[in-house]
Each structure stands twice: as C-alpha cells, then as structure tokens.
C-alpha cells in the first residue's frame, strides 16, 4: 500500500485576520470562543491523516463541522490557511496556478452535492467538460465521454439535456464527468445526499462496482453514517472543524473517542457494521484432521468436553467440515472401525466468509442446527457463531 494523500497540520480560517485566530487555536480555544473574540470562523483545524491509494476515505460530521472546507482544500478550491497537502509526494499548497490547473485536469476530479451540471450542455458534453477544458480534440473528447457514460449506464441519454433527467441520472452524469479524464483521485462532497434513499442506495452500489473494476482513491463526504459504513474503508469523524477520530468503521464503533462520536453511532444499525468475523468465537472443539486422528479419538474429545459438535481443520487451519457425536457413532457402526473423519461430516455445511455483515448472517444462524462456522479469505477456520453468541453480540452493542 502506498500513501496517496498525506495531510499535515491543515487549517482553514475564514476571515480577515487568520494569524490571530491560529494563535488562539494553538492556545486551545474552541471554534465558538474564537468566533466570539475575533469574528473569525474556523473552518478546519489541524487536520492530519493519510489516505492510501485505492482507498475510500469517508469524512463524516454534522453540518458545519468543516467537511466541505476540508475536501475543497484538497484541490484548493479553498486556499488553506496553514498546513500541507502532499499528493503523490508533491505538496500542492505550494503549487503555482499553472501546476494546480494541471493537477485538477489530470489527477483529481470532483462530484458535487447538487450535481453542478452545465445547463447549456447536453449530457455527453457535460461528461466531456473536463476533457474540453483540458484541450482534448473533439473526436477524442466525444469518444472518452461516451465511454464514461457507458460505464454509468447512461449512453442512450447522451444527446439529452441535463434537465430532462431524474436526480439519480443527473448524478450519474456528474460521476461520468468526473471519471472521463480518468483521475486517480475522486473528491465527492455529499454526492448522494440530495437523492432519495432508494436512488442513494443504487448509487452507492454503483460507486462500489466502479471501484471494484478500477481502484481510485476516493474522498467521500457524508453526513449519513449508514452510507459511510457501507462504502467507507476508513472514516474520519469531524466535530467543530477538528477531526476527532479516524479508523475503520468497526474500530470506531468498538472504541468511540468521545460522546460526539458515540452519539453518531447510537442509532446505527450495528448488524451492518459488525461482521461474521467480529462475532465468531473460538470456543468450539476443533479437531485436526491428519492420518493419526481417528473417529474414536474425536468421539472421546467431544465426550470429555461434553460437546455435541466438532469443527475439523487441517494442519494449516483450513476448515474441512463439522462432525457431531451422532454422526461419529453412525460412521463407526457403518464401517466397522475403519472410518475416517470425513465419513462423519455433516451434509451441506457451508462456512460463511468472515467479512459478511452480521445482518446477512442472521438468517443463516437462525436456520443452522449447529454454530455457524466462519472462515477467512484463505479458507482458514476463524470460529463459529452460535445463536447465543449472536444474541449476545446484539445485546452488547445496545
């Protein structure tokens, strides 16, 4: 993993005497106190973070917490008051006008809350806007714009006017415009907030699908926690211009930095944040499958520990199946002593991947007669989810 964007000590003060406000900030005064004393508004204070290439980094916070200011400093639509922003090793706060324009044309593009499509341009011309500005010839412009429109499923609408499209379709055009010049960084300021919930969900899926095909570094602003959790690899939570916590959704959920963060997560649907891996427990009997380990030994182990089921893995911890006391006895009877563990496997056991969300696991856990086995990406046994464990995880989170 390489660092794509590194932000250090980034500040923005709106007003005529930023130096004074910065000084007060350093002395630890809050945004409100500084406004009362100097009339200067703190947009962002001392933001520090790094974003990996290919990551979706979501910035969350209440209205007025400085999200838009932060993201607009990344392409210098808003000039930072202090701090540095290093993109691909270059500090963009020191770039000349010319270099900055090149950066905006080539490496970064933006998707806006209210779409910001040019009303005087047709859909395909809107998608081609960045290319036109960058000086592509008309043929290349049209071809690349059409490709971008195709990627978002809007090619048949290329000749329409933006005002003829629904909100969701307009934002697809906004997305196509941002993708057309194939930037490595996408800045999205509440890009889906103006859409109705159904369309918003579709657009989130769309974004994830595009991201799966072609990794870009995405900075996504949102005030909707469900959205943030759904699409974000990591979240940064902002409060009054400061970033109060950064981490993966589940990390923040498990250890919120303060009451503000906690209040954000209060109403969140936990079953969509926690994954099977998070709630799986390793308290089942595991049996290692190797030539020496016979059916009788397994039976003995289960009886000694008074358990009904055993989870079979090999020496490399790969999960193979589940045996039960009953199935072991049946196998013994069938084979007159020559049985192997595989003969005793319960039928139709499918382990769930550890990154499946709790909400998706629910039905499986409810239906399963045995605790549900969970495996990681390599097929290694992670643990099992019993009905009790599931309910306890739910209870813990309230």
């Amino acid at each position, binding site marked *: 993993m390489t660092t794509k964007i590194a932000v250090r000590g980034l500040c923005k003060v709106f007003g005529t005497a930023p130096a004074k406000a910065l000084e007060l900030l350093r002395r630890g005064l809050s945004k409100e106190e500084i406004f009362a004393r100097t009339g200067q508004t703190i947009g962002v204070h001392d933001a520090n973070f790094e974003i990996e290439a290919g990551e979706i980094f979501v910035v969350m916070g209440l209205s007025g917490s400085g999200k838009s200011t932060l993201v*607009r400093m990344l*392409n210098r*639509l808003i000039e930072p008051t202090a701090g540095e922003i290093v993109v691909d090793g270059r500090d963009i706060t020191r770039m000349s006008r010319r270099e900055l*324009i*090149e950066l*905006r*044309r080539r490496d*970064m*593009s*933006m998707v*806006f*809350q*209210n779409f*910001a*499509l*040019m*009303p*005087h*341009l*047709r859909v395909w011309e809107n998608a081609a*806007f*960045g290319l*036109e*500005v*960058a000086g592509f010839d008309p043929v290349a412009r049209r071809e*690349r714009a059409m*490709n*971008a429109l*195709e*990627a*978002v*499923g*809007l*090619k*048949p*609408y*290329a*000749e*329409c*006017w*933006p*005002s*003829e*499209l*629904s909100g*969701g*379709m307009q934002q*697809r055009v906004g997305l*196509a*415009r941002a*993708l*057309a*010049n*194939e930037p490595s960084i996408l*800045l999205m300021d509440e890009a889906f907030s103006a859409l109705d919930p159904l369309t918003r969900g*579709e657009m989130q899926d*769309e974004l994830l*699908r595009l991201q799966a*095909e*072609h990794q870009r570094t995405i900075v996504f602003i949102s005030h909707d926690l469900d959205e943030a959790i759904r699409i974000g690899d990591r979240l940064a939570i902002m409060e009054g211009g400061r970033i109060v916590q950064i981490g993966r959704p589940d990390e923040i959920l498990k250890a919120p930095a303060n009451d503000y963060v906690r209040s954000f997560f209060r109403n969140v649907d936990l079953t969509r944040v926690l994954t099977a891996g998070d709630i799986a427990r390793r308290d089942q009997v595991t049996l290692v499958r190797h030539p020496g380990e016979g059916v009788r030994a397994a039976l003995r182990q289960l009886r000694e520990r008074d358990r009904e089921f055993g989870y079979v893995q090999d020496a490399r911890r790969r999960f193979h199946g589940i045996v039960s006391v009953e199935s072991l006895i049946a196998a013994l009877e069938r084979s007159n002593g020559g049985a192997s563990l595989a003969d005793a496997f319960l039928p139709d056991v499918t382990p769930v991947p550890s990154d499946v969300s709790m909400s998706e696991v629910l039905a499986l856990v409810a239906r399963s007669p045995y605790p549900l086995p969970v495996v990681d990406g390599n097929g290694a046994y992670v643990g099992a989810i019993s009905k009790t464990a599931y309910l306890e995880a739910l209870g813990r989170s309230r």
Partner: protein
Amino acid sequence: MKFELPLGDLVEAVVEFLMRHAQWLFDAIEIVVGGLADGIGAALEFPPDVVLAGLIVGLAFYRVGWKFAVFAAVALAVIFALGLWPQTVDTLTLVLTATVIALILGIPLGIAAGRSDRIESALRPMLDLMQTMPAFVYLIPAAMFFGLGTVPGVIATIVFALPPVVRLTSLGIRQVPEELVEAGLAFGCTSRQLLFKVQIPTALPSIMAGVNQTIMLALSMVVIASMIGAGGLGNQVLRGIQRLDIGLGFEGGLAVVLVAILLDRITQSFGKPRTKSAPMTARGSTAPTSESADRPAAMQPAEPGA
C-alpha cells in the same frame, strides 16, 4: 438675497470646454457611429422592401412560431398600407445602430461588474443616473456636440438604453450558481475558460433579457430623438403633436407599437433556455423512456472510462 447653486453654469462651462478642446474626439465618434448607421441603413435598404419584410416574417416563424409569423406579416402589411415603410426602416436603422454599440460597450462592462465588486459599486451610481435622468436631457449635449441628425440621436439613444444590459449581464454573472463555478474550477478551468465556458453561457438568459430591454429602450428613445432630427417614425409622431393632428400621431404611434412587439418577441426568443426549444429532437430520436434506463442499463457491468 437669493442664492442658487450654479450647477447649471458649471455643466455649461464643462460642455463648452469640451467643445473647444475635444472636438477631435467628437469628430472621431461621429465618423464611427455615422459610418455604422450608414452601413446598417444601407444593408436594410439594399434588398427590395418585400424581401426585407419576408426576412422579418421568416425570422418570426423560425424563432417564435407560425402564429407569430402571421401576426408579423399582418403588422408589416399595415405599416406598408399606412405608407410608413421608409420611416420604419429608418427607425430600425437607428435602433439597430444604437443597440449594437450599446451591447459592444454594455456586455463587457456588465461582465466586468459581475466579476468584481469594486467595478460594480463604481458603475452603479452612474447607471442609476443614466436611467433616471429624463430622456430629453440627453438631447441637449448630444445636439451641442454633434449637431442635428442621426448621430446625436444614436448617441442619446445609447446613453439612455445602455443601463439594462449592463445591469442584467452583471446580475446574470453573479447569479451563476456557486457550485457551477466550483465545478468549472475543479475541472481545471482557467479564469478565461471559466468566463466563456461556464459564466457567460449560464448567464445567457439574463444577458438576453438585458439585450431585449436595451432594444426596447432604444426604440422608445428613438422617437424622442427625432426632436433633434434623427428621423424615422418619431418624426411622424412629432409632426402629429406639432400640428395637433391626432390621426397622424396615431398612425405613427401604431407603427412604433407594432415594431416594438416584433422586436420584443423575436429578441426574447433568444433568451429562452435551449432546453425548452430542443427536447423534441433530443428526446424523440435518441432516448428510451425514462423508467427503462435508470436501472437496468446501469447494472450491466461495463468498462469504466476505458
């Protein structure tokens, strides 16, 4: 003792000073404006009357619709029948000349004012003055500087008709949604690209409303300007007033009104957003119905921007 502020004397002194020392400037302006007016007049008179009338009707049909084209044909026929066609062409010449110059000056001024608060606040009192000063007042210095005839009439008309296009251009530029400006910048527009690719096209309806108002003001001023010999339909009205001939005045007035309606509707049509006039071709020929495309198309996997 009675004291009066000698403002009138002061203005008189300034005008006299200018006449004595800046005559070369007025001569130059006269040559340019007079030349343009002659050119436009010649262009309007070059085709046979019927052809010019046909062109106007055609424009009315193309820009507005067949009903308005019928109206235009009838209106022009009435003007012909009243024997006012030559005066109408003269009036059109004056209006077009004054409008062209007013736009050449006014649109750039409006753009500058729209992009800079300082220019805006410097211009505003001047525009207020130009608009509220009774139109007749411009006639005096115009006549003093340029004598009688077409040129002073055009000059007075320009001064009177300039403010709306400046104001509405500035307003249009200022009303371009902030997000559109941000979008322009975020995709790498230079300041000039931002102006020509985002701000002016987006402000176009407002700018065209300004153009329309400027034309209408120019038409109303042209009538007044006939008092200093500008000619055209205004003469007809003026003669009606001087002779207390209601019929004569009414005929001239009616012709002015008809010309006003034609100019108004045709120029307004340029201010309509393109989306209103275009969807028939865009929708009918290329796009499927809106329900079918929002979803299924989007769900098919496709190469992104490759």
